[in-house]
């Protein structure tokens, strides 16, 4: 760690201490871990507040007002872009008191509407349709994937595996079941069989992703220890 400024020096020590405090949770919940997390939440909250103000609220609500002045307030465009958001946010402020909280529901309902629509639109146009189409790959043995260069039998097998995985996994999630005379819900044998294959695929997928995340976090853990060692060795060397 060459050429540290004073702030960097102090900062690095603080960072190392905080790292140790957080890692102390490995032993168990303790004072230091709590101190570190509360500090973290406070800082993160403060920073998020600043970001919300600087990146969203100020440019969206305050600056237009200051720049354009109050004379343009009654113009239709201003009403849409400025006045209505202001009104909605003021309504939202009523939520600060429990007694008036219900007044602030309107902007929330608007948020929910937008959120639900984004969910539906996003899932439909972003996943359902494109992924369904992507699942249709030609089984033509002569086709070649442009980037991986896969072709022939190798590609065919892989495409079939992906296809099988997609379909069986989808079927695994099927909720509907027949109601047996005993009152128990049950699925047909064939469906059970496919669902079992789907379950295997899900397990493989999860296994791969779990291992991947484990590898990623292991890199992080390594980096933390490396960082601590760097700090320690810096002091050892003086």
């Amino acid at each position, binding site marked *: 760690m060459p050429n540290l400024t004073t702030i960097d020096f102090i900062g690095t020590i603080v960072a190392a201490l905080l790292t140790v405090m957080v890692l102390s949770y490995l032993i168990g919940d303790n004072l230091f871990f709590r101190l570190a997390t509360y500090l973290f939440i406070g800082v993160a909250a403060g920073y998020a*507040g600043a970001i919300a103000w600087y990146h969203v609220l100020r440019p969206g609500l305050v600056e237009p007002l200051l720049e354009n002045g109050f004379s343009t307030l009654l113009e239709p465009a201003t009403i849409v872009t400025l006045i209505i958001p202001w009104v909605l946010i003021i309504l939202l402020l009523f939520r600060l008191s429990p007694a008036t909280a219900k007044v602030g529901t309107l902007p929330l309902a608007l948020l929910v509407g937008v959120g*639900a629509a984004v969910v539906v639109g996003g899932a*439909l146009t972003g996943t359902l349709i494109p992924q369904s189409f992507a699942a249709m790959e030609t089984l033509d043995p002569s086709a070649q994937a442009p980037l991986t260069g896969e072709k022939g039998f190798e590609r065919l097998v892989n495409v079939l595996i992906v296809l099988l995985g997609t379909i069986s996994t*989808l079927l695994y999630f099927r909720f509907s079941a027949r109601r047996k005379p005993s009152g128990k819900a049950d699925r047909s044998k064939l469906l059970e069989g496919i669902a079992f294959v789907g379950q295997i*695929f899900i397990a493989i997928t999860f*296994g791969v992703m*779990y291992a991947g995340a484990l590898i990623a976090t292991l890199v992080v*853990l390594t980096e933390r220890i490396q960082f601590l060692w760097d700090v320690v060795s810096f002091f050892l060397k003086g």
Partner: protein
Amino acid sequence: MKIGAYLIWAATAIGVGVVVLLGYFLDSQLVLSLRLALMRWAVLIAAAALLLGLWNLLSVHWSKVSEQYPGWPYSALLILAFLVTLSLGLMFGPDNAVMVVIFDYIQLPIETSLMALLAVSLVVAGYRVVASRRDVSSLVFAVTAFLILIGTGPWLIGNGGSLQILLGEIRNWLAQVWAAGGARGILLGVALGSIATGLRVLLAADRPYGG
């Protein structure tokens, strides 16, 4: 009055939702500009809601401090950190060097360390899966994870040998083909579930805003 209010909220959510949703599919200029306006409002409201949420957070911890609830010193620390960071952020802006110092030397190390904690948690969880779960899913899960780790990990002896290459290929095959199939199935399923959930809200069967 009460019913009226509920109706207004539901109608707002539905109306806004339909406009935004149609924006995904229709090229009508009116719909698109309406949608843009609504999205803008939503972003502004969400930011304001975030500030209210922070206020909520602050008040929760403030009450802990004022009532000397067990552990109140932590809450006091939180409030202090929050106020200092917020005021510095508002004063200098989030891209000021002061904020960078706070971020680099407080927020980042803690967050990264939490991530490092996750590494241990995941290993412990993996150990539990292999040691105590007895179902097919868990078995396949564990075997797959192990193969991926072996195929990714180090090879002390015989680096570059055929076994390592084989394991590496198995790893790639699992991760890139088998898992891709399962992942696509899950993705499609999740998309179906998301659409249904969103539509329930848009049909006002679910009204999380109350009523």
